[in-house]
């Protein structure tokens, strides 16, 4: 995988998730982050830290990205959300504009 195609998302605990840029940009916020002019640190280094999102949530979010891509390509499956994650997940989603 080329360096330009991937991005690293780091959770509050420091856990790192490496995913495709295409998947990450399902989030409008991340998309802006990476395409904004002006040389922000994230775009420069290819990694984004989310000090306010836990690893569990971040993991789920990454899964969501991929599911979303598949869904838009026609594979219409269900995305299961564990009930205890719901609130945090929603707030993160709001933050990430996903």
């Amino acid at each position, binding site marked *: 995988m080329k360096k330009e195609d991937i991005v690293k998302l780091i959770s*509050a605990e420091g856990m790192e998730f490496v995913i495709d840029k295409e998947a990450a940009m399902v989030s*409008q*916020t991340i998309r*802006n*982050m990476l395409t*904004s*002019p*002006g*040389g*922000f*640190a*994230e*775009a*420069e280094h290819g990694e*984004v*830290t*989310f*000090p*306010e999102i*836990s690893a*569990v949530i971040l993991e789920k979010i990454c899964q969501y990205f991929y599911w979303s891509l598949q869904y838009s390509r026609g594979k219409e499956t269900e995305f299961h959300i564990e*009930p*205890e994650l719901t*609130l*945090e997940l929603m*707030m993160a989603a709001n*933050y990430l*504009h996903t």
Partner: protein
Amino acid sequence: MSNQKKRIFQIEAFQNRVVVDPKYAEKTWKILEHAIHEIYNHNASGLSFEELYRNAYNMVLHKFGEKLYSGLVTTMTAHLKEISKSIEAAQGNLFLEELNRKWNDHNKALQMIRDILMYMDRTYIPDTHKTPVHELGLNLWRDNIIHSGKIQSRLLSTLLELVHRERTGEVIDRGLMRNIVKMLMDLGSSIYQEDFEKPFLEVSAEFYRGESQKFIECYDCGDSLKKAEIRLNEEIERVTHYLDAKSEGKITNVVEKEMIANHMMRLVHMENSGLVNMLLNDKHGDLGRMYNLFRRVPNGLAMIRDVMTSHLRETGKQLVTDAESLKDPVEYVQRLLDEKEKYDGIISLAFSNDKTFQNALNSSFEYFINLNSRSPEFISLFVDDKLRKGLKGVSEGDVEIILDKVMMIFRYLQEKDVFEKYYKQHLAKRLLSLIVKLKTACGYQYTSKLEGMFTDMKTSQDTMQGFCSSHPELTDGPTLVVQVLTTGSWPTQPSITCHLPFEMSALCEKFRSYYLGTHTDIKAIFGKGQKHELNVSTYQMCVLMLFNNADRLCYKEIEQGTAIPASDLKRCLQSMACVKGKNVLRKEPMSKDIGEDDSFFVNEKFASKFYKVKVGTVVAQKESEPEKQETRQRVEEDRKPQIEAAIVRIMKSRKVLDHNNIIAEVTKQLQSRFLANPTEIKKRIESLIEREFLERDNSDRKMYRYLA
């Protein structure tokens, strides 16, 4: 994950609880404010987008959106004020460049800020109906930079000055111009219009007003128009390069008004170079230019048209009243033709075949041609002259072309009947002169029949008129058109004997008695022709009238009823039943030839586009052998009396002549008509001897003597 047992779902407090104290908002804001500063100072790399975004997000989330927004406004304004100072400080030419650079910087910064504050843009702003960040940025720029006292006027004057410089021939930085103008357009079309376009148009108007005044005084019409055209194209090009496309129409209007509309009168009527001069000298290029420029302004073309029309009428009037040309009709008409051709050329080459100009041309010609009442006569004489000349030397194609042109002039005549009268006279003269020539070349006999035919036509017409006027009650019945022919003059046709239908024979009788009443010793023979809806030959008429009394007739019945000879009857039926489009009769069986057993019906389905349908007679086949022989024989028969007459004439004068000499003399006399055959001449002599016109000499078998 440790301790992951199923627990009762309960909503827990958010883990990362943010401290909601007033200081929080201030702290967060400070971070963002700092970031904005950095952005404006080109120090943004190294900043964490996520951190800034999160801070803005939290502020909005915790109801501090107001603070964020107003803080943004303040910060940006402060920065822009600084920027404005630096722009004002720029010297001379660097002013625009500085402005352009700062504008680009601002745009970039604005985008970064908007990205960071995206959450606010999405949620807070729609809720409170505030201006979105991007627009806010543009508005702040506008208020603080563009509308700042010093910059505003300086900007406008710089732009206008650059345009002016370009107009006087200097090269300017068009890219820079384009960027600045685009900036104004981005700030809103009203900004563009108010801050630039309006003043631009005013200044341009003034500029062109002055320039056109100068031109008119220094240059003649043609050159002035050239200059106007150049300027017009220049402006159009200017717009494509660095102005808003919508300005094109406006600036071209300005140029048109100042350079053309205001001076139309003066240009057109300029001494020695105005419109009239151009017309006289066929200056197609200048005329075309004038046309293209004037058509852009209201009433431009109307003015050209009016001047052209009055000029044309003047020259035309002079043409037709000029004493010199009146002496020579051919010259007169030739001049008219030349004038027409000239203007046709002008209209097609310079005025792009404009219909209104064509109409003006036509009406002018019509006007002055009819001023001279002798025009029709002259035109007829011209045609006459050309047709005569056409026989010698000039190619047929050329004559055709000339006649076509004359036709165009002819259409302008109002008194076309006068033309007709003269033309008939000239035609008759031409024909008669032709006949006279034939007479002198070939002798009286040759032409007497032709002359006879002409006189017959004339007398027939007169007779017909007399007949119709003396029998007014006949106008309802079938109209009779009769040609009364002198037997000797016309090619002989076997006189037809057929039973004419009753109505016709009654009419014929009436005519016969009328005619015999006026001319006593001439037998009246009826020719062809009957005008009704169907124009048919006499035979066809007889056949058709039979169907008045019967729906269905078989061939034998028709033959009996009309007593028409068989071959003629067959041809006549063929032409009425078998010819497509003229099949007034239906035949059974539907074959091409007429058989003895065929039966005929009236064709109900007969339809034709025309009211008058002419049913011709199927043309007789090319003369078959027996027919050819027949014709040959007839010619021979005709020659016999001619030979005899020649022999008698010769013998009467010579009294005694030997055989060979007779042959020679006779041949000589007849050579203008035909080459006489010696054997034939011998036979004629024998026959004359038998009839006691001549006798053989007793002593010399070869000598002949005339018997009185």
